[in-house]
Structures are given as structure tokens and as C-alpha cells.
């Protein structure tokens, strides 16, 4: 029997594959298609204090081996979530991570505090790729001190796992990872989407209503792997690797470079069973390779190149 589980701050995940936030709804949309209990965990769509309508269409554009989205954090709001979505999630036998988005540090705190009073949530993932409305709309996630501040403020509010989801749209993601580690985060999720854009040359307009959007899917996998690798050299807390994971092989790449577990996002749109298949694939891979624990793959990259050399490749 191969060990598949892992834990963060004492909370167990039955395997190392989670559904990524915003790509698996609230877990109830696909119950006909997939046994969600076979996932290691589910990260909910980002929750804000009030419901958010989201951006006007067009919200989705396909690109070579990727997609752009500009959903605008459309979500039912934390109150509706608690009343309408959480009861179903409580019936599940998998780990539920509430993902939180907000437009002020206070809103992060309010949403988390309210969720703390509920049963059935096992941990929090904090989406810092949000515009900081109180301070001019700049993204929290590209400002290291803001990202740190959010962590510092949230840490005392919960004893459950506090996972900070980092944006890749920064020069040195490891600085952000170190800052949140020092501030008490239990883990980091790496990466959220990359800023991208597409133009309709016939109408001469941006294809997305918001001009730019977030790029995800296989196209970004090489970038995501490099970011996870960079973070893995700098922190000791677990990393949840995300970005373009479609297959078991992709997931193994992330584990090897240092991810403790992975999240599957865009792949769910193409195959809602992708996460479950990858979890099974990881177990099978471990069995075939005589491993007792899927975790033996974590950070098992064999690399004899000094980290300082790796920037000098062009």
C-alpha cells in the first residue's frame, strides 16, 4: 500500500491532488461526472464578503495551449456560500479549503472570521491577486509588504492551515514566499495566472472586456515549474504547485521540483475527472517505482547545477 496522504498544520489531505480555486465551482456542479471524494481536496471559488457579479462578457479567450480569463472574481459571496454551498461541501469526504479574495485587508479578515465560525472548512487559501481598492487599486499580490501584511493580520484569526496563493507576475516570487513564511503562513500556492491579453484584429478591440486577463493552461506550465522551483529553494513550508497540469507526468514534474502537492485548474474544464485521474496516476507511478509514499517524489529532482547559475541561460 502506497501512502498518498499528506498534511498541512495537522490537517490531512487524502492525496496530493487538489482542485484549484475557480475551476471547480463549489464542488456540486460536477457531482454527476466525478466522485469528488477521490480528490485530495477542493479549493472553492474565491469568496468575497459581498457577492460579486463579475466582469462583463467576453470573459474567456482561448490561446495557443492556454486560455485567458477575466471572470472578475464572480462569486456568490460568503453568506450565500455558508447557507447554500457549505452544507453540500460538509457531506463530502475530502478536505475543503475556502479560497478568499478581498479588496481590503479588513475584508480578508472579515471573510475569514465569519468562515471560522462555521463547520466543515478545513483551511484557507488566500488569493492575493486582487486589486487593493482602499489603496488605489494596485494588486496586493505584487506588493510584498501588502502580501505580508495580509498574512500577519490573518494568522491570529485561525488555527487552521493558512495558505497564501502567490501571483507569478513579480520579479522574485521567492521574496514573497519568504515574507509569508516568516509571517506565519503554513503553505504557499504557486502560481495564480499570468497577465495576458488578446486582440480581435477585425474589430480592433481587446478580446476580453477588461483588456487583460489571466493566462492558464499547458502554455504556462514551464513558467509555473520554474516559479515552484524558485520558491522551493527559499522556504521550508509546503508548496502547492499549480499551472498547466493536465496529466500525471505534469504533476510528477511539480513534485520533483519541490511541490508537496498539486492543484489542477484549467484541466477540469476539459475533463472534470482530470484531478482524480492524476491522483490515481500518482499512486500507480509510486507503485510501479517501488515507492512507499508518493511524498518521496517531493523535491527529488537530481540537479547538480548551483542555483546561482540558473539565471544565466539566455
Amino acid at each position, binding site marked *: 500500500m502506497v501512502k498518498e496522504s499528506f498534511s498541512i498544520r495537522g490537517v490531512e489531505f487524502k492525496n496530493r491532488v487538489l482542485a484549484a480555486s475557480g475551476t471547480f465551482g463549489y464542488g456540486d456542479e460536477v457531482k*454527476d*461526472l466525478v466522485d469528488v471524494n477521490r480528490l485530495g481536496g477542493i479549493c472553492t471559488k474565491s469568496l468575497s464578503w459581498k457577492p460579486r457579479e463579475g466582469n462583463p462578457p467576453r470573459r*474567456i479567450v482561448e490561446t495557443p495551449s492556454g486560455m485567458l*480569463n477575466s471572470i472578475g472574481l464572480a462569486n456568490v459571496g460568503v453568506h450565500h456560500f455558508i447557507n447554500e454551498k457549505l452544507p453540500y461541501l460538509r457531506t463530502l469526504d475530502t478536505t475543503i479549503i475556502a479560497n478568499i479574495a478581498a479588496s481590503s485587508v479588513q475584508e480578508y479578515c472579515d471573510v475569514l472570521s465569519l468562515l471560522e465560525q462555521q463547520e466543515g472548512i478545513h483551511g484557507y487559501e488566500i488569493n492575493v491577486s486582487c486589486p487593493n481598492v482602499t489603496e488605489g487599486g494596485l494588486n496586493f499580490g505584487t506588493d510584498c509588504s501588502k502580501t505580508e501584511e495580509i498574512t500577519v493580520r490573518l494568522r491570529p484569526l485561525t488555527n487552521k492551515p493558512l495558505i497564501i496563493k502567490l501571483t507569478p507576475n513579480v520579479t522574485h516570487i521567492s521574496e514573497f514566499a519568504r515574507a509569508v513564511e516568516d509571517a506565519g503562513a503554513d503553505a504557499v500556492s504557486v502560481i495564480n495566472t499570468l497577465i495576458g491579453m488578446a486582440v480581435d484584429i477585425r474589430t480592433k478591440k481587446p478580446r476580453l472586456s477588461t483588456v487583460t486577463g489571466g493566462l492558464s493552461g499547458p502554455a504556462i506550465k514551464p513558467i509555473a515549474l520554474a516559479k515552484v522551483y524558485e520558491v522551493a529553494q527559499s522556504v521550508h513550508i509546503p508548496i502547492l504547485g499549480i499551472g498547466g497540469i493536465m496529466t500525471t507526468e505534469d504533476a510528477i514534474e511539480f513534485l520533483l521540483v519541490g511541490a508537496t502537492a498539486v492543484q489542477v485548474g484549467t484541466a477540469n*474544464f476539459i475533463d472534470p475527472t482530470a484531478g482524480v485521474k492524476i491522483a490515481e496516476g500518482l499512486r500507480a507511478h509510486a507503485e510501479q517505482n517501488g515507492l512507499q509514499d508518493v511524498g518521496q517524489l517531493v523535491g527529488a529532482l537530481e540537479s547538480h547545477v548551483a542555483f546561482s547559475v540558473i539565471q544565466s541561460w539566455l
Partner: protein
Amino acid sequence: MMLQRIVPVTFREEIAENVFVLRFECNEIVCSASPGQFVNIRCGDACLPLLRRPFSISRVLGDEVELLFNVVGQGTRMLAGKRVGDSLDVLGPLGLPFNFGADFKTGLIVAGGVGVAPFPFLTSVLRKKGKRIVTFLGARTASQLAPTHLDDIHLATDDGTKGYHGTVVDLLRSYLDQHRVESPRLFGCGPTNMLKALTNVAQEMNIECELSLEGDMACGIGLCQGCPVERTKGERKYALVCVEGPTFNSKDILIP
């Protein structure tokens, strides 16, 4: 109930210029499908194109589901290249069907171009319910018309190469001017401009009208929130085309 199945292609033919019919065998989808619903298909086996492509269920015949589609880009080009015996990764049936059980006597079907796709299925169901059906079918030019498995067909082409010379909604208007239609209900599918014009007709003449919308979909099953359409009323600003549509009462939504 929606299903994800690998199914065999059983038929493929180009029936009009750039318009293809493709059938696949899937008893389970046939059994649970209703007119207006769609299937979401993986057109390639690698990640190009990355996302599934949505297609209305055009007909069901025995154990087979029939699609009718235009080749417009990579996904539909790959689909048109499938051969009998090839397998297809299909998710469906998806979305809400037309409200074909509503209280009306005459179904007025209005289709622009390949917007005709959902209507053979709707026609067969309405027939069974004993409804009268009048069908208005428009296209840019004669070679693009695909008037199959429909009842009482009236044709229109933008260039006048066949039938009425003008848009299909103009044809509908002139028909409604000349005929008294008993207890009508409109069913429309086609390009955005056509749907807008149709919505106007429905409003002016006070006829209930259901539209089948196309939206840009990443998932087709309510996971991504990528397919909003603006609502005219209610608390929420947007509805999701994939799970709250693709069929809507024209009064409930704002066509963009």
C-alpha cells in the same frame, strides 16, 4: 443527467457549403437529451484546441446523436475531418432545453445560418405533441441553407439567391403581417443581430420567444463562470449561458 463518454462516429457528411452533419452513437445521451440542449466535444486529442467545443443536439435517431455545424476554426475543422469509426470524447447533454411543454399551439421556428442546428430535434418533439410548426430559415446565400427535417419551411437569403430576398426576421415579419397565427411561440437561434431583431418582433407583437444563445465557454458545465449573459431582471446581473441557458426567454436577457 450529464455524462462524459467516449463514443464512435457513425456518420459524417458535408450537406451544404461548409456545413457538416456528424453523428455519434450514445444511447445514454439520446435517452436523457431534450431539444435545445448541447454537447461539449473534445475536437483533438492533444491540447490543440485546448477547450471543448459546444454544439447543439440537432437530432436523435435511434441510438445516435446528430450534430450540424459550420467549419469556422480549428476545432470545427478537426471535427469535420473525423471519419466513421473514429472516437469522440463527448460531455452531455448540457444546459436547459427549450420550454417546448409551454402552452401554445403554433411553434414559429426562426433560424439564421447554422442556427438551424437545434431545430430538427425540436421539430420532432413538437410534432409528437401535435403542435403546428412554421419554420423560417435564412442564410447569406442559397448554398449555405440546410433545410432538413423541418416542417413548413420558408426560406430567405441575404443575396436573394433563394426564397425571400432579405433577412429571415424580415421574412417572419411579412409572414406575420399576412397570416393569422393561432397561439404562437417563437423559437430562435442564429447570429446576434438576428436574435436582437427577433427579440424586437416578439416584443412588438407580444409573442413569447425563446432564444438559444451561443457564448464563449471554457467548461460548459458551470465551473468557470466564463459565459455570462446580462439579465433584464432579478437580483443577479448575469446568468450563465451554459447552465442557465443556452435557451432563454427573450424577455429575461439582454443580447449584447
